C-alpha cells in the first residue's frame, strides 16, 4: 500500500512552467465544459416545446404565442374524419378530464396507433385560429409494457 502513496508532485514545488501547464489544462477543460453548457442552454431555448393539456390550452393558450406546443388529450369518439385521398385528418381532441375540446387538423399518413378514444399528443405552433394545425401526432407506441394496460 505504501507504493500508492503520492510522490511529491511538481505542483507543490511551485514551478512556473508547471503552473502554466496547469492553467492550459484548466483552460482546455473549461472550454469544453463551457461549450457543452452553452450548447445545452441555447438548444433548450431554441427547441423547447411546452407540454400542456387541452384545458390549459383553452384557458391560457395565448400566453404561449410564438412557441411550439404539445397538447395531450384524447381523440373524441365519433369525430375522426380521415380522407385517404388527400391524407387530411380532422378530429376533436378532448381534455383527459373532460374540460373542453379543440378541433385539430393534420396532414400526412395516418399513424398506426391512431384511433378514436385513444390518448394522443398533438404537436404544433400556437395559433389563435381553429383548427389547431398539428405538425406531428404522437400516439402511444405499443411498447412491451403497455399490453397490460390495454387488456
Amino acid at each position, binding site marked *: *500500500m505504501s*507504493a*500508492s*502513496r*503520492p*510522490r511529491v*508532485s*511538481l*505542483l507543490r514545488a511551485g514551478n512556473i512552467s*508547471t503552473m502554466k*501547464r496547469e492553467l*492550459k*489544462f484548466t483552460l*482546455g*477543460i473549461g472550454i*469544453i*465544459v463551457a*461549450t*457543452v453548457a452553452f*450548447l*445545452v442552454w*441555447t*438548444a*433548450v431555448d*431554441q*427547441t*423547447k*416545446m*411546452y*407540454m*400542456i393539456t387541452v384545458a390549459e390550452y383553452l384557458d391560457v393558450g395565448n400566453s404561449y404565442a410564438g412557441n411550439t406546443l*404539445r397538447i395531450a388529450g384524447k381523440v373524441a369518439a365519433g369525430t375522426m374524419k380521415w380522407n*385517404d*385521398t*388527400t*391524407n387530411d385528418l380532422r378530429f376533436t381532441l378532448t381534455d383527459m378530464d373532460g374540460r373542453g375540446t379543440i378541433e385539430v387538423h393534420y396532414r*400526412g*399518413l*395516418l399513424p*398506426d*396507433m391512431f384511433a378514436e378514444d385513444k*390518448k394522443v399528443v398533438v404537436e404544433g405552433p400556437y395559433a389563435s385560429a381553429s383548427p389547431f394545425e398539428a405538425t406531428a401526432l*404522437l*400516439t*402511444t*407506441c*405499443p*411498447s*412491451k*409494457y*403497455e*399490453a*397490460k*394496460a*390495454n*387488456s
Partner: protein
Amino acid sequence: MITIGNLALYLALATSLYAVVASIYAAQAHRGEFVTSGERAAYATWGLISITTIVMLHALVTNDFSIKYVAAYTSTTLPVRFRLTALWGGMEGSLLFWTLILTTLTSLALFQNRYRNREMMPYVTATAATVTAFFVSLLVFLIPPFALLKFPPAEGTDLNPLLQNYWMQIHPPALYLGYVSWTIPFGFAIGALATGRLDDLWIRTSRRWCLMAWFFLSLGNLFGARWAYEVLGWGGYWAWDPVENAAFMPLLTGTAYLHSVMIQERKDMLKVWNMTLIILTFALTIFGTFLTRSGVISSVHSFTQSGLGPYFLTFLAFVLLISFGLVAFRIRELRPRHQLDSLLSRESAFLFNNLLFVGIAFATLWGTIFPVLSEWVRGVKITVGPPFFNRVNGPLAVALLLLMGIGPIIAWRRATFRNLVGNFVVPTALGLAVGTAGFACGMRSLSAILVVSFSAFVLYTIAAEFHSGARARGAMLQESYMSAILGLMRKNQRRYGGYVIHVGVVFMFLGVTMSSIYRTEELHTVKKGEQFTIDRYTLKYMDSENKEDSHMAQLIATLDVYENGKQITTLHPEKRFYKRPEQPATEVDMRSTMRDDLYVVLGSIDDQGVATFQAYVNPLVWWLWFGGVVLVIGTAIAAFPSKAATLHERARVTSTIRR
C-alpha cells in the same frame, strides 16, 4: 409447478441476502470459510433463479392462462419461439430475465476468480448479491411473476404484434446483457475501494467484462435501431426517445471508461475519474431500468405506471451514496502519482475524448429529464425533441470524431513539432481534400463536410498505423505483408482491435450523418398504373391485394421500381390488421444498397384502389449497419483470448512489479 417457481424465488431472496451478509462479514473478520459460504450462496441464487425461469418458460410454452402474465402476453396461436421470448415481453418476466442474467454472470465471475483476487472477491460477491437481492425483492413483494387470475381466460391477450419480430427476439437479450454485465466491473471497483487495492489490478481483472458489457450494450442499441427502422415505419432508426436515451447513456460513459483506463494503466493517473466513470455507468444502467419502468418520463413508448419508480430511485441513491462514500474514504490513496506533461499529447487527447463522451451523456440526460426538471423548478412542463439532441450532440460527436483521428498518431507525453509534422501533414491534407471535394460535389451542409473530411482523416491514420506496423514487423521477422498484419493484430489485440472498432464507428458516423442530412421524403397518392418519382427512382404502382387468415388481414401493394428507365426491383409494402389484439401495423419494404435505401411505406388504399405511399431515400444508411458488423469483428479481435495476450500480460505485470 407454480408453487415450485414461487418457492425458488423466495429462497433466492434468502440466499442472495445471506450472500451479502456472509461476504461482508467474511471480509471484515477475515473468515475464509464465510467467503466460501457467501460464494456458494451466490451460486445457489443462480440455481434458484434458473428454476424460477424454467417454471415461467414452461408456463408460457404450455399456455397456462391461470397465470396473469402468461394470459397477458401469449396465446394458443402464438408460435412457440415467441412464447419463449414473451419472457421479456412484459414487466415481471423482463425483470426475472434480468435477474437470471445477473446471477449467471455473477456465478461466472466467481468461478473465473475462484483462485484469484481472493482478497477482493467477497466484495464482488456482496455487490452483485445486493443488486440481485434488490431485483428479487421487487419480484417477491411488488410484481409477483406468478400472480394468478381468478378466472383464467380460454385465450390469452397475445404478444404485441410489433414485438413478434426477429429483431425483438435478439434486441432485449443483447441490451440486458449489456446493462447487467456492468455490474461485474462495478463490483470489482467496489472491491478495490473496500480493500484499498487501488492499483490497476481491478481494472485488468474486469477488463474483459467491461469489453463484454460495452459490446452487448452497443449491439443492443444497434438492434433496437434496426428494429425501429424495419418495423416502426417512420423512415428513421433513432428518435432520441427516453427509452433509447436510457440505453445510450451508459454506453457513452462506458466508452469513456474503456478509454480512460488506458491512461491509468500507463500513467497511474485519473484514478478518481475512472472510479467515477464506472460508478456512473452502473448507476446509469439502474437509472435506465428506472426510466423504462417507472412512467416518470412520458415517452412515445408508453409504459404502465408500475409504482416501481420510488424503489428504483431509493436503490439508485443507495448505490451512489455507498460508492461515492467509498471514493471519498479512499480519496488520499487515489491521488495521481504523475501529471499530464503537455496539452499536445496523447494523454490529453484521451482526456478531452472523455470530457466529450461525458458531455454528450450529460446533454442526453439533461434533455431526457428536462420535462421533470422544468416542472419542478418552474412549474411548467417543457420538453425537448430530437432537434435538441441533434443540435447539442452533433457538434460534440464531430469533435470526438476528430479526436479519434488525432489520438492514435499524436505522441505520448509531449508531441514535438517533428511528431506533429511527420504524422499530421498527410492525413490533414487528405481530410481537407475530401472536404473540398465534398463541397465541389454540391455538399453545402457544414456538418456533412466536416464529417466526411474527418472520416477520411481518421481512416487514413488507422490505415497508416496498420501499414507502418506491418512494414516494421515484416522487415524484422521476414514476414509477408499479410501475415505481418495478422501477426500485428495477434500480438497487440487490444490496440488493433480498437482500431478496427474505430473503423466501424467511422462508418456509422458516415451513415448517420448522411442519412439524417440528405434524406428525401415524399408523400404520394396514386391510382393503379400511375407512377411517381423520388430522387433517382421511379415507382410505378401496379396492383393491390387483400389477404386474410385467422391471425391477420393484409393489404399488399405492388410497386415496380425503375432507375434510369430500367426496372431494378419490385417492392411490396403492406398494411396489416392484427386480430388479437386488434391493431393495425405497417410493414415497410425497402431496397437497400451501399449507396442508399429506398424505403416505402403504404399509408392506405381506398375502395377505388387509390393508394398513398410515403417514400424515403436514405443515403448511406447501409453503412450504419455495416459499421456494426465491423465493430463486432473489432471487438472479437480485441477480446479473443490468446496465448500471446496472456504471455504479454504476464510480462507486463512482471515488469510493473520490477519497476
